[in-house]
C-alpha cells in the first residue's frame, strides 16, 4: 500500500532532493525498512544504534504525533501522509 512521506530538508540528499515521496509499509517500522531499501543510508539517520527512533525527530501520521498513537507500531493505510519533522524551537 502506498503512503506519502514528507522528507525534511536535511534528509533530501538521500531522496534526490525530493521533499515528498511515495513509499509503502503497514506500520512506521515497516515504512522505515522500505525507506532504507529505496534510499540506502536514510534509516541510520532516523534511528539510533539500537534501532530506536532518535529523540530529536518526530513522526506524524495524518498530522498526529505517533507518540499519541502506537509509536513505531502505528498502523498505516493506503493514502496516509507521514511527515518526518526535526524538533523545532519554541515561539
Amino acid at each position, binding site marked *: 500500500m502506498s503512503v506519502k512521506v514528507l522528507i525534511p530538508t*536535511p534528509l533530501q540528499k538521500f531522496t534526490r532532493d525530493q521533499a515528498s515521496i511515495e513509499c509503502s509499509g503497514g506500520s512506521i517500522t515497516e515504512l522505515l525498512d522500505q525507506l532504507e531499501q529505496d534510499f540506502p543510508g536514510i534509516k541510520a539517520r532516523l534511528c539510533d544504534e539500537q534501532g530506536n527512533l532518535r529523540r530529536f525527530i518526530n513522526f506524524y501520521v495524518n498530522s498526529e504525533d505517533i*507518540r499519541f498513537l502506537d509509536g513505531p507500531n502505528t498502523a498505516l493505510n493506503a493514502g496516509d501522509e507521514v511527515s518526518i519533522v*526535526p524538533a523545532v*524551537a*519554541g515561539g
Partner: protein
Amino acid sequence: MTQATPQTLAPTCARTATFTGLKCKECGAEYEAKAIHVCEECFGPLEVVYDYDALRQTVTRASIQAGPNSIWRYRPFLPVETDTPIDVGTGMTPLLQANRLARRLGIKKLYIKNDAVNMPTLSFKDRVVSVALTRAKELGFSTVSCASTGNLANSTAAIAAHAGLECCVFIPSDLEAGKVLGTLIYSPTLMAVHGNYDQVNRLCSEVANTHGWGFVNINLRPYYSEGSKTLGYEVAEQLGWELPDHVVAPLASGSLFTKIYKGFQEFVKVGLVADKSVRFSGAQAEGCSPIAQAFRENRDFISPVKPNTIAKSLAIGNPADGVYALDLAHKTNGNIESVNDQEIIAGIKLLAETEGIFTETAGGTTIAVLKKLVEAGKINPDETTVVYITGNGLKTQEAVQGYVGEPLTIEPKLEAFERAWERAQTLERLEWQQVSV
C-alpha cells in the same frame, strides 16, 4: 517540487564575527554558519561556536558599558557579523528590586527582570527576533517567517516591518485578540491555523522544506535562540557584575531557560563575573506541563502532551529543548513546578498589586510557581532570587476579565462620590478580613 534557495546578497557591512560556525549539541559534528538548525547525522540541535579566547582578549566591562543601551552592547557574544545590526532599542529592560512582593512571600532579596516592557512589542521575543532577522539579512533572506504562540508573531512582524523584510507568520487560530491584532497591525501575511502550536510548528517545518524563507525558529534557530542569552548578561550587569543565587523562569520549549544559563556561563568563561553556582527553577502551567511531569517522575525523557491552559504562550506540548531544561534544573539543584489556571490568574494579580507590573499569563505562571516554591521551602529566604517576567498583560486581557472587579460608576456629584467611596472602603475591609481569616 523544487527546493528554493535564498538569494545570496553581497555583504554591505563590516565583518567582525566572533563566531566560527555551528556544532551539534549531541554528537559534536561541525557545520558552516548557514541557515540550518539540525545535525545531518543525528538530528540534534545545532549551536553557535564562539572564539572565547578572542572574546577574553577584547571584551571588558567598560567596552560593554560603552555600547548602546540595548542588547547590542553584547554584540561580540551574538552570532552576527555586521557592525550595524537591527537595533530597535531591544533589551536593557528594568531589573526591579521587588520588596513588596518579597515581603508578601516571606523572602528578602527578590528581583524582577521586567521584559513586559521590552521594545518594540513588549515581550522577550524582541531579543531573539532582533538577532534572527539581523542574521537573516546577512544570509540573504528577503522573506522571514515563524510559528508562534503570539508573542513571537508580534515581534517578527514588527521587526520585519522595520527592517523592510517580507513576512509571513503562522499562529494557532484560537489566540488572544491582542496578540492577533498586535501582529496584523504590521501588515504581514498572517496564517491562523486550525490546530494547536505543535501542529502549527509541524506545518511550518513542512513549509520550510519547500520554501526558501528564513524561519526564525526553524532554519534560523541556532542564531535566534542565542538572543535569549542577553537576559542572562543584563541581569549579571544590572546586579553589579554578579550572578544571582537562584533564577525562576517560565518554560515553554525550554530554550529561554537554557540560554540564560549559557549567558551566565559565558560571562564567567571570559572573566566578566566571578563563578558561582546558580540554581535554575522552571515554571509551567498544569494544562501543559510535559517538562514538570518528567521532573516530578524523575524521567530523563519528555512525553508530549496536548495543551489545555490559559497560558497560551507556554502551550507547547512537545518542547524541543525540554530535555536540556530538565537536565539544567537537576544539575543546578533547582526545581520545575506547575500551577493551575486559577493560580496563574492569582499570580498575575499578585504581581500587579505588589509591584505595579501587569504581566501576561506566562508571568502569572512564573509568579505562582515562585510562591509555590517559597511555600515549599525550596527558595532560601536569604538568597538573591531573580524572576523573569517575559510578557505583557495587555496582550492577554481575556485571562483576567471577570477577576479584576468593575469601576464604580457614579453621577458627577460630590454626594454620589462620598456614598460610593464609603461603600468601596467597606468592601475593601470585608475583603481584607476574608483574606486574614
